[in-house]
């Protein structure tokens, strides 16, 4: 077999594999869309009405009008965004220190951070629930945000450290010679130059917060405090087979913001993740 037909064959196999994978990854989401656009009758046609005869946006209108959905969306956005800021406030100074200072136990504490990353939120939620209960913090967004922040900090510190590592030390030194102290180096040199890394860590944290189920499910009981993840879980419990198109619409509403946020910053996020993964 000559090299050329060999690579032709390889191309054909690549295309075939890519097609199968595309159907596997995109299929479920397009089916969700298809369900969300159907009326009651067409739901029962299953995959035969993959493209509905009478597409309708009535389901979305119903969901957004007749339920707590706008509140769930707002709560989800608020909790996720606040946790993004919280993570940055906690992790940025540490990332700077881990990148620029030499001190005893540095490698060990970096590894320790990763160990905490391995602990399931489920494990820590048991005591935290009692703790928050005693402090009267159940049913507060503050408690939820603080737990989100804690969950996000280990990975964020690692990713931000590799961002700061990428800034030449000579810039710090030049600024110090010009009379900057550590704070102003951090504020005026490190922060602006880490902007891409900061943006990607922020968006990673926000998407993780948006997907959270366990923490708000346990710490919140009032319906008007619930974020989207719990909202959609409760909404699902109220639906039957005959209102599956409403559930599909609700589900799509909860999925789209995360996808949009991710797609708009995809390049940044992947950059931060891969540089973190390669450098370790």
């Amino acid at each position, binding site marked *: 077999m000559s090299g050329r037909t060999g690579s032709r064959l390889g191309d054909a196999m690549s295309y075939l*594999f890519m097609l199968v994978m595309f159907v596997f990854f995109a299929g479920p989401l397009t089916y*969700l869309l298809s369900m969300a656009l159907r009326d009651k009758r067409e739901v029962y046609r299953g995959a035969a009405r993959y493209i509905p005869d009478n597409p309708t946006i009535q389901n979305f209108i119903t969901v957004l009008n007749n339920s707590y959905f706008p509140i769930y969306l707002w709560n989800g956005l608020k909790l996720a965004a606040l946790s993004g800021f919280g993570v940055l406030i906690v992790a940025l*100074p540490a990332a700077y220190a881990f990148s620029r200072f030499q001190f005893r136990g540095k490698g060990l504490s970096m590894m320790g951070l990763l160990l905490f990353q391995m602990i399931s939120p489920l494990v820590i939620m*048991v005591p935290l629930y009692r703790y928050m209960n005693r402090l009267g913090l159940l049913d507060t967004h503050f408690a939820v945000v603080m*737990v989100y922040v804690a969950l996000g900090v280990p990975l964020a510190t690692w990713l931000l450290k590799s961002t700061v590592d990428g800034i030449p030390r000579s810039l710090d030194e030049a600024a110090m010679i010009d009379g900057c102290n550590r704070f102003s180096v951090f504020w005026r040199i490190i922060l602006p130059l880490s902007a891409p890394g900061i943006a990607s860590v922020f968006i990673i944290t926000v*998407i993780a917060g948006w*997907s959270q189920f366990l923490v708000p499910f346990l710490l919140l009981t009032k319906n008007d405090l619930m974020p989207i993840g719990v909202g959609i879980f409760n909404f699902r419990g109220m639906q039957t087979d005959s209102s599956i198109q409403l559930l599909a619409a609700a589900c799509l509403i*909860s999925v789209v913001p995360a996808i949009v946020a991710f797609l708009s910053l995809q390049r940044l996020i992947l950059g931060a993740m891969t540089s973190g993964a390669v450098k370790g």
Partner: protein
Amino acid sequence: MSPIAIEADTPPQSRTFMRRFAGAPLPWIMPVIIVIGIFYLYPVIDVFRLSFTNATLIGENQQYTFGSISNALSSPQLPDILWATLIFVGGSVIGQQILGLAVAVTVIRGEKRGLFGTTILRTTALVAWVVPGIAGGIIWQMLFSEAPYGALNSILRLMHMPTVAWLSDPAMAPWSTLISNIWRGTAFSMVVMYAALKSIDPSLYEAAEVDGATASQQFFFVTLPQLRAAILVNMILITIQTVNTFDAIITLTGGGPGRATEVISLYVFNIVFRNYDLSGGSVLSVLMLIISLGLAFIYASFLPKEEEQ
């Protein structure tokens, strides 16, 4: 308050204090230490302590005892739960690793040869990854459902093939949850594998080509050995993610039929927050922790020793 203002307004004495303060690493790391201490270290210690008690979620009276440990570990359900967990975690790790590697290799090959659709494939896989767990469970329930709207069975019916009891057959349900989890998780492995593949020195392939290695020989004797560290690190990360996953299963099967898909994390969740058995849940939490850490250490022991630069 801007740091520059501090510099300008404060008397020299406190300026040297600020300088000394800022020059030590501890103040910079303090926020992380506090957050980790309060939200990770304290709860983990408390979980260990609680597993030696008979605490419940509602009562305040608790006594120290070994009873909870022996009860939880001798529970007749535990072997089934561990088996379901093994299938779910083992299958997810193998599936996501192999599929993630295959997609990454194909995407890189596609980019090199300018094939159409590589970016679309990469992006679609990543989109599945961003879908919240609860939503993922709902989506896959619509696909697996045996009601008329279930996508897979209605396709089978269109093709005049027998339908499958995706979620109601205890022998089938674990595979269904597995497929849905592979759908959500593969993108992560793909990103890690993609980055690792990119960092392989191209001259290795040139040398292999000169020696007349075929494509599959290049894959097995150049690519795989070079990826060893990345594969092991990836295995650690996805193992831990999968051991801890339960939101997708809650909406997809709720752990059923019977206990066929009740993995340990869902079991812990049910024991603590449905049965209010805090101590029993703590014992199993510790067990979960030991399982993830144990697997992590096993994988890590296969990692090549780090070379000092």
